[in-house]
């Protein structure tokens, strides 16, 4: 087998009248760091939500680790999601649980870990994102940047093979973006496989092994960070870059 971890093969997703994702194919290898950029409404979120089954494609196939995902089978979806960590724009921490409980919930209930093991791992990972002292706090007592770091640590606790980030810094105050990007940068430097939907062009340029540009549900162009940012080929990408880089 190759080291291809995710294969998206001709996926289309239609909402009522909108073709959110239009016949997209994409291949992700272990260790890849792929940024997805593109204008609002271009289908970036929908694409990565299809990858972990939060949206069900209308046609096309998705393979995780060489295995075809059966979207009609809940058991299969649950299994497949174990290999994928998903970080949301709005964190989606569980407000009724402490930070530590947020981190141990899935390892205990889904992976069947003992409470001690789950706690020990959670504390190590909280320490890594610099929030061990917040382990007994509730999410409401944290800043946005801290919430997102907890959310990343919550994913890390499941030890997934690939991370999907859906605009992880878009809901943050500007002064908190840096702390979250630092954590992501560290993950990247450790060889973590990541797909990052982002509007942070500087960050995308710095960490990506590949950049994918989407527009109107299609992948218009992809290539290395230098290809995409310094030598854009298509008119749509040139126009998009001139808009975002000017602002």
């Amino acid at each position, binding site marked *: 087998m190759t080291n291809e971890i995710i294969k998206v093969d001709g996926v289309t997703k239609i909402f009522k009248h909108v073709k959110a994702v239009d016949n997209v194919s994409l291949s992700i290898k272990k260790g890849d760091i792929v940024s997805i950029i593109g204008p609002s409404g271009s289908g970036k979120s929908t694409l990565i939500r299809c990858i972990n089954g939060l949206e069900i494609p209308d046609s096309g196939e998705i393979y995780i680790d060489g295995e075809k995902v059966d979207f009609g089978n809940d058991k299969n979806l649950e299994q497949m999601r174990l290999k994928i*960590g*998903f970080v949301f724009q709005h964190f989606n921490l569980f407000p009724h649980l402490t930070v530590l409980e947020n981190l141990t919930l*899935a390892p205990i*209930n889904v992976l069947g870990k003992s409470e001690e093991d789950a706690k020990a791992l959670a504390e190590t990972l909280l320490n890594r994102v610099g929030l061990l002292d917040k382990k007994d706090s*509730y999410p409401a007592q944290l800043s946005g940047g801290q919430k997102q770091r907890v959310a990343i640590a919550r994913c890390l606790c499941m030890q997934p093979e690939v991370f999907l980030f859906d605009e992880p810094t878009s809901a943050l105050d500007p002064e908190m973006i840096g702390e979250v990007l630092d954590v992501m940068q560290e993950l990247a430097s450790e060889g973590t496989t990541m797909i990052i939907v982002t509007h942070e062009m500087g960050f995308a340029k710095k960490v990506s092994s590949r950049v994918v540009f989407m527009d109107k549900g299609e992948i218009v162009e992809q290539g290395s960070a230098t290809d995409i940012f310094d030598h854009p080929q298509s008119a749509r990408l040139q126009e998009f870059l001139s808009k975002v880089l000017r602002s």
Partner: protein
Amino acid sequence: MEILSVFLTPENIQYMLKGALMSVVVAVCSLFFGTILGVLGAAAKMSRNKFIKMLGGVYVQIIRGTPMMLQILFFYLGGPVIWKFLFGRVFTPNPFVVGIIAISINSGAYSTELIRSAIQSIDKGQWEASKALGLTYKQMMKLVILPQSFKRILPPFISEFITLIKDSSLLSSIGAVELLTSAKVLGANYYNYIVPLCMASVVYLVMTMTISYFANKLERRLAESD
């Protein structure tokens, strides 16, 4: 003042408090069984099975769309007829038992909507995060959604309890001796309804205000952990 002392004999007071106790019993039992029906109803209304979902909808629609008084009379007057038809035996219904059944079924329809709307008011990000972490539907409900819904259900459930205390008075029309009936009986004995009805009002107010008081305390306590 003289008229008050005529009414406020130990026997009369005891008689009325006994009525009040029965009102509370009716309300507590109805809240209990109504909650069970509400959980079932909410599960039905959120079911993926279209038929079960429809049953839940019909239950809520019929109960909330008809008067409670009619429902009570239906069970009290119609129940024995149906019983005789089904089992061929005659029986005289106990007004309390019939009343609790009718009020529970009524309260269950309102609880169905309370529970359903509390569950569906939980942010969809909570469902998505649970899914993304690999939780099964059951685990999601038990560990993430229901604990959060509980806090939102509690305040309307307490108002439902207060409503039930008052609604139990409808059973006076089928001869159950609860608080309102006891006031009517005393009124008939003395040819004076104003005083016993006022006394009953005071007892109702004491009960409902006590519940409100503790409810407020509880709500404040729950709000603290937010």
